[in-house]
């Protein structure tokens, strides 16, 4: 054709250009070719069928002559029949192929394999586009492939494989998944939903503990932190830190953590405690700092504070702008719910902090303070004021003890005991039961001297000694005074040990009379000395538990590789008793708050129906309550004549001034 055009070039240039009705030689040639050769039905179908067959063979993995394909397709598009004759049929064929393939493979293969396969297919089609297909086909072709390989199977893929991928933390597959899904309509939305469902499901497994298995509870926070790390990683690596994913992650965490009331808050407090206790032993300062930050993140979920706020703010703005809000009151009540559950955390944190400070077990005062300032940011100054007061007490005590020792110098038996006293302001610290014990006269005298010294400085105060909280370092000589050791023990342990200065063997009742320690406590104390790792006294007869009839003997042949030995007081199964009392205290505080709220409401409303009162209470109270509990409080207030029932209508209350 080029030859023909060359020969008639002059004709083409001069005559044809001037007569617009006549086609140029080139176009006419194409036209004729189209009319006489390709448009012949037989030729056309054979060409197209041939093309499709070739492409199908290539798709099945055979090598074909791409050059041939390319020139044929070029011809079709030059003849302007690419769209009509070829493209539609090609797309139909593609659709058919991939529908079948998608259906088959999604059943047969593992999700990750399937995803890889889809990725491969997409890459192949792209290559095909580059090599021989017309560019105009790109959009419909890719769309078609994605639709049939992915979109139709979205749910199935997610349900079948997402959990597994997340469980095994397969980052690369997850990245692929999110990449592929991002091309498909609704893909990310579904992925996000399934992702959220996964978090909730797994999280619930971590948090909910129907049998109250202590073991499991102990690991819960660590597991939560690990889980959070993992999910964060997945979001960062695979979902490109997509904000929507982060939001649904937050939402899911919040939902599962709050499925169990109070307990998570308590456990987090305990976890912080354990970390601060271990402190530098397990981690550097920086790591500790980071860990605290992470814990705070989880802690935040418990109040649903920031997540809630984020969503709440957004929705509130929407409602206000569209004027759809139910009522201003309802909105306000929602705000107050932001503070749920905080008091439980505080109570436990406080108790543990007290223990750490008194036993000097804290990793470092700095770490404690940094934790405190974090809490302060999180919950405001009022939340932490008491906790800060505890630190202040410790500092003041240091000063006082120092002043006391200086005042003692050159005064009586100053070298015998080195006394340090921690003076606690009662309001800041958890309540400790008052315990009376018999101190040896020397200690008693010393204690009196200190008391006089302290009260001389601070008049108008009453000092109450807390023997259960003190601790001592004792010097002891074993092996007929040959082996000297220092033993660090609690004050109660000290009292028992000091008795053996005068006697080698004592019975349980001897010790009880001499020390005045109450039975249960004494048994535990003796157990720690006679049945622990370092046994400085022998129990007769041997055994694990201390009985009333046992007697004890000083272990003169005691051996230990260290010079300084610490004997831990056996922890009272802190657990049940103390734990219950902490929780109890929180609930008691809440009761007062309920009472106060009832009176406040009744005072303003004077007369109110039961239903309205209850709903008003739910609005005002900042912690989760159940209506039977509220009813009990109302009963009690009626009994105490703060309010009364209406004579005719038992569901109506009047305020009694």
């Amino acid at each position, binding site marked *: 054709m080029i030859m023909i055009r060359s020969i008639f070039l002059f004709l083409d240039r001069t005559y044809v250009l001037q007569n617009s009705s006549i086609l140029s030689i080139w176009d006419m040639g194409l036209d004729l070719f189209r009319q006489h050769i390709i448009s012949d039905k037989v030729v056309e179908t054979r060409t197209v069928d041939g093309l499709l067959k070739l492409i199908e063979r290539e798709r099945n993995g055979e090598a074909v002559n791409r050059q041939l394909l390319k020139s044929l397709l070029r011809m079709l598009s030059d003849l302007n029949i690419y769209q009509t004759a070829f493209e539609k049929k090609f797309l139909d064929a593609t659709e058919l192929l991939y529908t079948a393939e998608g259906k088959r493979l999604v059943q047969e293969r593992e999700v990750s394999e399937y995803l890889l396969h889809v990725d491969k297919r997409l890459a192949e089609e792209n290559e095909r586009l580059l090599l021989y297909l017309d560019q105009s086909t790109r959009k419909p072709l890719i769309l078609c492939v994605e639709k049939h390989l992915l979109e139709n199977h979205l749910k199935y893929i997610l349900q079948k494989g997402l959990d597994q991928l997340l469980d095994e933390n397969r980052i690369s597959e997850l990245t692929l998944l999110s990449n592929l899904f991002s091309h498909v309509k609704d893909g990310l939305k579904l992925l996000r939903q399934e992702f959220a469902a996964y978090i909730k499901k797994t999280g619930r497994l971590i948090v909910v503990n129907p049998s109250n298995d202590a073991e499991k509870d102990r690991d819960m926070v660590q597991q939560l932190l690990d889980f959070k790390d993992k999910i964060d990683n997945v979001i960062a690596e695979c979902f490109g830190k997509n904000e929507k994913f982060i939001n649904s992650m937050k939402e899911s965490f919040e939902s599962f953590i709050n499925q169990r009331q109070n307990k998570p808050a308590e456990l987090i407090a305990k976890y912080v405690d354990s970390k601060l206790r271990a402190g530098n032993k397990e981690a550097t300062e920086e790591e500790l700092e980071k860990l605290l930050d992470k814990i705070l993140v989880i802690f935040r979920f418990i109040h649903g504070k920031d997540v809630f706020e984020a969503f709440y703010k957004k929705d509130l703005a929407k409602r206000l702008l569209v004027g759809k809000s139910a009522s201003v009151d309802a909105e306000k009540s929602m705000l107050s719910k932001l503070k749920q559950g905080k008091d439980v955390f505080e109570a436990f944190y406080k108790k543990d902090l007290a223990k750490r400070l*008194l036993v*000097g077990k804290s990793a470092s005062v700095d770490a404690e303070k940094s934790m405190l300032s974090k809490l302060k940011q999180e919950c405001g*100054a*009022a939340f932490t*004021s*008491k906790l*800060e*007061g505890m630190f*202040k*007490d410790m500092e*003041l005590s240091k000063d006082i003890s120092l002043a006391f020792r200086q005042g003692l110098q050159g005064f009586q038996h100053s*070298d*015998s*005991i*080195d*006394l*340090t*006293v*921690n*003076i*606690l*302001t*009662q*309001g*800041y*610290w958890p309540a*400790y039961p008052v315990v009376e014990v018999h101190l040896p006269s020397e*200690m008693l005298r*010393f*204690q009196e001297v*200190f008391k006089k010294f*302290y009260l001389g400085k*601070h*008049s*108008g*105060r*009453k*000092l*109450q*000694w*807390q023997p259960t*909280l*003190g*601790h*001592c*370092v*004792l*010097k002891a000589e074993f092996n007929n005074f040959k082996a000297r050791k220092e033993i660090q023990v609690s*004050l109660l342990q*000290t009292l028992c040990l000091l008795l053996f200065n005068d006697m080698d063997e004592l019975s349980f009742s001897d010790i009880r009379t001499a020390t005045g320690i109450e039975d249960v406590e004494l048994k535990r104390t003796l157990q720690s000395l006679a049945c622990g790792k370092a046994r400085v006294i022998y129990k007769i007869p041997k055994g694990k538990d201390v009985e009333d009839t046992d007697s004890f003997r000083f272990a003169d042949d005691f051996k230990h590789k260290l010079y300084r030995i610490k004997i831990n007081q056996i922890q009272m199964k802190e657990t049940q008793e103390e734990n219950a009392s902490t929780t109890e205290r929180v609930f008691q505080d809440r009761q007062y708050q309920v009472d106060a709220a009832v009176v406040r409401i009744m005072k303003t409303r004077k007369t109110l129906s039961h239903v309205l009162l209850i709903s008003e209470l739910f609005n005002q109270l900042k912690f989760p309550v159940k209506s039977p509990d509220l009813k009990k409080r109302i009963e009690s207030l009626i009994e105490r004549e703060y309010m009364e029932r209406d004579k005719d209508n038992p569901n109506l209350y009047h305020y009694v001034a």
Partner: protein
Amino acid sequence: MGNSWTGVATWKWIANDDNCGICRMAFDGCCPDCKLPGDDCPLVWGQCSHVFHMHCIVKWLQSQSTNSPCPMCRQEWKWKAG
């Protein structure tokens, strides 16, 4: 290094009442203007043996124009030397 003993004691105010007669807050707590009980919000004793938060009685005494009576017993308020 001799034996050492770290004792622990709690303290509270010695007062003949639980609450401050002026602000009605607990003596173990603090006056309404303070956040923390303890040394920052001390108690004071008058010679009439009545006790108040220091901040409360100071405010009261300043609000009185002529003489300065104890709010509880109307006797002239005299600080009891601590």
